[in-house]
């Protein structure tokens, strides 16, 4: 498996995740709404996957955000294993 690394924003609710998707889309941030990886939570939920290169553009927008971002993670995939580190902004 290809090694991969990206940032992830998790949300308190599905509604918040959907609002976040719409918000980033409106601001032309390249991101993807994905199911919350099991490594973070076994529960069902959505998260926004941000490429590392998009973080600089996305972060300043957050203060105008109309959604409540809950947690931030850095996800690394190495040799098929997924590791999630909390990421403090």
């Amino acid at each position, binding site marked *: *498996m*290809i090694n991969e690394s990206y940032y992830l924003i998790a949300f308190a609710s*599905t509604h918040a*995740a*959907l609002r976040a998707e719409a918000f980033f889309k409106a601001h032309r941030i390249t991101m*993807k709404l*994905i*199911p919350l990886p099991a490594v973070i939570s076994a529960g069902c939920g*959505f998260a926004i996957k941000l490429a590392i290169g998009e973080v600089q553009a996305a972060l300043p927008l957050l203060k105008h955000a109309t959604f409540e971002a809950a947690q931030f993670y850095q996800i690394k995939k190495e040799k098929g294993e997924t590791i999630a580190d909390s990421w403090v902004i």
Partner: protein
Amino acid sequence: MFKIDAMGDVCPLPVIKARKALKEHAQIFITVDNEISTQNLSKMATQLGLPVEVGKESATSYRVYIGAGDKAVEVAPSARVATDDYVVVINAQTMGVGDDQLGYALLKGFTYSLAEQDTLPSHVLLYNGGVHLSVEGSEVLDDLNALVTAGVEILSCGACLDFYGLTEKLAVGEVTNMYRIVELMSQHHVVRP
């Protein structure tokens, strides 16, 4: 890239299948279940002057890429394999019945997760509203392209593309008809979002 499933085949069958395919396709990849077969395929490719790359998935699963160009090299590291275990049918732009916005988000989550599976389907069949996923502007094209790279065939219903006026916009996979859809669904375990 033309795909050949030679799992369970003993030598020289994988080599014969690969040789036949190479007469019509510039690039092929072939799945085999033993290392000796990969060595015999490599010997053949070398004799034919073709680049060859072998990827090991497990002790009983190997992928051999044969043919010109960089693509073989580019997709070789993928651990994910298209299998004959199941097909996926997507017949709408939503997953489940209820709120459409939620249903659409769920469907996007479904295709993302599908592309992340270790055991991939042989085919993804798209019909009715599902054909919106395989056309220009779709938000899941990257997932579907990843599936194609791993050897999964994406088939969109031709009548449906025509109905929605999307025939010219197909961006991934091939067009199929109802006979093929029925055939594939009747022969495989069917997974639906």
